[in-house]
């Protein structure tokens, strides 16, 4: 009965896990900068961070293929040092991370902006370092937005298709994630298996969205 092909699910979870982690450690600091600091080009940085949300996935995929592929200097260097990205699962991670990055930044930025700066000011007068203020005051007050951002990022990364297809290809057992596997199953007219995978990923996505919404509602 358990004759289903679980490799795409395992790969999807692996890719999504690493991508979400990557987005968490890069997105939260950027969100903090955008929410708390004034610096030249802040609006431009904010806009660029949002770009993956509005650009077609194929454009993202194309950019990545051109910058990281075997025909680019960076891609050749990566291949030479034994860390090729294109057509590997790591390429799928990069694609998923970039596609889901704006969701983390936007969610966390909104959350951080909702934290009263006077509370941070109080901590400052009590002699706390900026680092301690971030960890002990700001983050605990904005934690819901981070969890919500993580859930959204996870859901988006799990579902990435276009950019992944272009950067990582669609190689069963190596770069074929759930979304790509479903695409293949539909193309091959294997609807029974497609139904099963579609159901699984829908349940997962809905669960994550419910979590994210519940947390976001209580942010304000």
């Amino acid at each position: 009965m358990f004759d289903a092909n679980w490799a795409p699910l395992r790969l999807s979870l692996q890719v999504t896990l690493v991508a979400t982690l990557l987005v968490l450690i890069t997105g939260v600091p950027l969100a903090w900068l955008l929410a708390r600091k004034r610096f030249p080009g802040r609006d431009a940085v904010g806009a660029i961070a949002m770009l993956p949300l509005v650009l077609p996935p194929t454009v993202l995929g194309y950019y990545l293929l051109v910058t990281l592929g075997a025909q680019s200097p960076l891609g050749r260097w990566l291949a030479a040092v034994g860390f090729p990205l294109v057509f590997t699962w790591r390429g799928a991670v990069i694609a998923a991370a970039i596609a889901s990055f704006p969701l983390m930044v936007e969610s966390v930025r909104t959350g951080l902006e909702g934290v009263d700066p006077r509370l941070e000011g109080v901590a400052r007068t009590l002699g706390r370092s900026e680092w301690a203020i971030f960890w002990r005051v700001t983050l605990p007050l904005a934690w819901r937005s981070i969890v919500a951002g993580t859930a959204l990022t996870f859901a988006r990364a799990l579902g990435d298709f276009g950019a992944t297809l272009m950067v990582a290809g669609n190689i069963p057992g190596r770069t074929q994630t759930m979304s790509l596997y479903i695409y293949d199953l539909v193309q091959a007219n294997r609807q029974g298996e497609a139904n099963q995978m579609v159901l699984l990923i829908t349940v997962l996505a809905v669960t994550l969205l419910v979590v994210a919404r519940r947390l976001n509602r209580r942010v304000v």
Partner: protein
Amino acid sequence: MRLRSAHKLRALAIAPSIARTASILAAALRQLQPVCLFGSLRGLWGRSLCLLLLPWLAVACAAQPASLPPPPADVSPAPLTVAAAADLQFAFTEIAALFEARTGQPVTLVFGSTGQLAQQIENGAPFDLLAAANIAFVEALRDQGLVFADSVALYAEGRIVLAVNRESGVAATSLDDLTNPMIQRIALANPEHAPYGMAAKEALTRAGVWAAVEPKLVYGENVRQALQFIQTGDAQVGIVALSVADVPEITWTLIDGDLHTPLRQALAVVASSTQPDAARAFAAFINGPEGRPIMQRYGFVLPGELEE
């Protein structure tokens, strides 16, 4: 056997997948409990930590080999990755299974349009063998040094058919019939990069109906997707490869081979292959006494039978 087609599962099997998901989540929650207890001691911080960890734990559990059947990728030796034109879907699935049974060498098949697969090879895709639907793409790769020149070999000549969905209520046995206003959607593989789409376009042009039918055309990414459009009835008719036409949902008529450039299908070992010997062995198997009858059964004309 590690071919995807081996996983013959129907809608019935949805229930076990739900059960499995539930067991994964249950395992995740079990692992989560100590963290949550720890968290309750530390208030908000603990809770946030706990919630942040939840997805990771779920994944960690799911990723544990113990909670899922061992992945096919664990089988040794390392699978050969064969990029195959979409018209080879059925024939190569069978040949790869037989090859694995004979040699113990597993084969992973990646199907796509020849143009897309060639483009992926140019960008460094880790394929060992390319089985193209059109020799021109293989020759272009050879000229760039991306495939071994001495490995380029013809293995088949393909034919195209006019396919009609059985339940569509329309009849079409010649390309002229496609101008019938009852026919609203005609599926082809994308003629930009799929050889079978190119052949279909050529045949429609030479039959003098291209201009009339063009507004009704819908393009699949490759010939397999074009077939799927017809199978589901979303396109009533279409032009696909003879080698994939024997499916229950459709009836077909062979299209005169003189209407298009011969679909000379060639294969080659990819220069960056990590297992070129195994790739050559598979190539020889396709063109050998065990591969040829299978190719023949799927309607391919074979090298040696080709008129030069």
